[in-house]
């Protein structure tokens, strides 16, 4: 486990300068799509913790994305807060709401938990749509500002992308540390067998609440970055479908895999844009790809690599067994001849 996480850390640190420099030649469209990939990767990282590591089926990540986005939009446009303060407040708010939502998770599991979180997502959507005095209702909130940090304006596409990259790195490092820590192992124990985990002294109640709360805080953080990225929010992007897409993101990337959210977000948010080159067919092709992946590899895209590795190691083992067969055969031949001799 430690070797794997250390390799993950290495990849994060190597990927950072590449991702810092590589998109500098892109125009605003390319930068927007790559920025959206980063933001949705953060949301998916949170759901990956809740679903992939702790095994709690949640359909509320789209709602937390919305809570973070609305909190940031309201604080920056109406209260005049700077984005960093709004970011922290939005993440903290999502954490607190996540703790509250975690309580039902103590009583129900699997698809019943999915129904509870689904209802929560609908409630958040209705609040965003109907409480016009606070959220702008169906007309949304426009002109959400991008940040100015230490006197430098990060509103242009490239500086804002690089800010998002830094935040993603920090949150990914925090997630890496969390998963490496005893907390991460406790989450895994919770997923594999809650009763056994409890018998080993893992506080089920505390870790279930924490899994929800931390996952939700990541969703809120992503929403807090989504609002200034798009500069306009209305309730539509945080409806139930957003939670389903995020669930697809985690499952398609590889639930319970550290890089699964990044691969899944690429698949869910960048691939449809790349497929636009196919004209009117792009959504049909995308849907076909989703079906194929789910059929071929229910464990996600990274699961394909795992399966390929397993297949290779099995093939190697089979080859080793085959190579060892003559020796074994010779040994058994001796026995046979001895046996036969004895019979004779």
């Amino acid at each position: 486990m430690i070797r794997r996480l250390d390799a993950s850390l290495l990849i994060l640190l190597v990927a950072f300068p590449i991702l810092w420099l590589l998109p500098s030649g892109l125009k605003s469209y390319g930068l927007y799509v790559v920025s959206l990939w980063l933001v949705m990767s953060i949301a998916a990282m949170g759901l990956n913790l809740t679903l992939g590591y702790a095994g709690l089926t949640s359909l509320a990540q789209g709602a937390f994305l919305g809570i973070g986005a609305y909190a940031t939009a309201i604080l920056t446009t109406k209260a005049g807060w700077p984005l960093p303060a709004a970011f922290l407040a939005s993440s903290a708010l999502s954490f607190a709401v996540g703790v509250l939502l975690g309580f039902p998770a103590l009583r129900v599991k699997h698809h019943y938990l999915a129904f509870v979180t689904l209802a929560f997502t609908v409630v958040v959507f209705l609040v965003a749509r109907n409480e016009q005095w606070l959220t702008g209702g169906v007309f949304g909130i426009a002109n959400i500002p991008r940040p100015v940090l230490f006197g430098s304006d990060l509103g242009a596409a490239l500086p804002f992308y690089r800010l998002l990259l830094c935040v993603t790195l920090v949150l990914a490092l925090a997630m890496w540390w969390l998963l490496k820590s005893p907390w991460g192992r406790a989450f895994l124990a919770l997923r594999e067998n809650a009763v056994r985990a409890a018998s080993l002294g893992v506080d089920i109640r505390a870790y279930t609440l924490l899994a929800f709360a931390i996952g939700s805080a990541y969703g809120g953080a992503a929403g807090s970055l989504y609002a200034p990225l798009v500069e306009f929010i209305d309730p539509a992007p945080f409806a139930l479908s957003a939670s389903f897409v995020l669930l697809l993101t985690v499952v398609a990337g590889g639930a319970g895999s550290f890089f699964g959210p990044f691969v899944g977000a690429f698949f869910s948010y960048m691939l449809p844009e790349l497929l636009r080159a196919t004209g009117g067919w792009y959504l049909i092709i995308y849907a076909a790809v989703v079906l194929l992946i789910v059929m071929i590899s229910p464990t996600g895209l990274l699961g394909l690599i795992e399966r390929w590795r397993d297949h290779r190691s099995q093939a190697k083992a089979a080859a080793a067994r085959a190579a060892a067969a003559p020796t074994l055969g010779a040994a058994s031949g001796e026995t046979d001849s001895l046996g036969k001799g004895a019979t004779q």
Partner: protein
Amino acid sequence: MTKTTCSTAIALTTSLAASLLVLGGTAQAADPVKLIDVIELSGPGAPAGTNWKNGVDLAVKEINAKGGILGRPIAVTHYDSQTNPGATRAAVQRAVDEDAYVVLGPIFSGPISASMQITQRAGVPQIVGGEASAFTKQGNPYIFRTSLNQADAMPKLANYLRDEVKAKSVAVVWVNNDFGKGGRDAMIPELQKRGIQVAADIATESGQADFAADAIKVKNANADAVFVYLNEEESARFLRAARQQAIAKPVIGETTLLGAKVIELAGEAANGVKGHVGLLVDAPKPGFAAFGKTYQDAYGFTSDHNGIKGYTAVYTVKTITERVGKFDREAFAKTLHGARIDVAQEPGILIDTKWLENGDVDRESFLVEVTDGKPVVKATLPMINP
């Protein structure tokens, strides 16, 4: 385990690098005039967006057949907005990166609000199909409409309810999105100003399938008339539910309720519906009839108002560019503010149209009644400020 992670890293890096190459390699210079149409081709706005797209294609084909704009052919590209603000923003960013001369669309107000800052920053004119009133109030000099602002249409309709229908009370049924809420918020004060009581104020959902409960509420309200402000498919479903509940009071609407798609989907239940329409292929203007026939021949169905909007948007680009005499986006935007295009000068505009300083349009409109499955124009209303 390390091998797995390394394989993952290689796969990630390769796919990301390939993606960045694709995303970065989209800009290109071209001799034709580039119009990029960001429009609802999937999601709830698809029926409206498909009509708009067809109208745009028809106009481009006609203009190119006559030599293009100032001798240059038009190259139009359609990008699907998915009726989603985030996807629309990405598509409009792409349009700006690809050096669009003018961006056409979208129609739904949320996607317009999410994308109009991009064209404003880049100084690219954007001609949209939205009717919600909010986005032309923000002082954006690059946003232009193709249809009447709903805030301008509602006073005409309230007068109609008072003077023609003689209604003392009205039940209002609206769709709870930016289009429906905007219309409802504009209509109710107009009714109250004229002493008409709002007997029921019924919000419905976008994409709602069953309107039986809403139709019963309307019936129980016992108002003198029903004002319906829903999107196309929902309008048809409501009309069918109203017919099943035997609602005998006049059903009045604005543009969408009397659209060709609604009449087709609602069938017999659409008969007797009345209302105010900004653009209609059956309007008593020769240009509309010719356009309606060409559209029908090309696509096999009748265009609704969105098809006309898309068509006239391209002719607006042509006429204003020819007035400017060159392809200059800033001059285009300046010229279109306060411009008036008459059919006598450019038949493709279909109806005399004037643009106000905020990008709104002013033009004649029509009072219509559906009779035997066809919209029949009963009266033509003049421009607000001719």
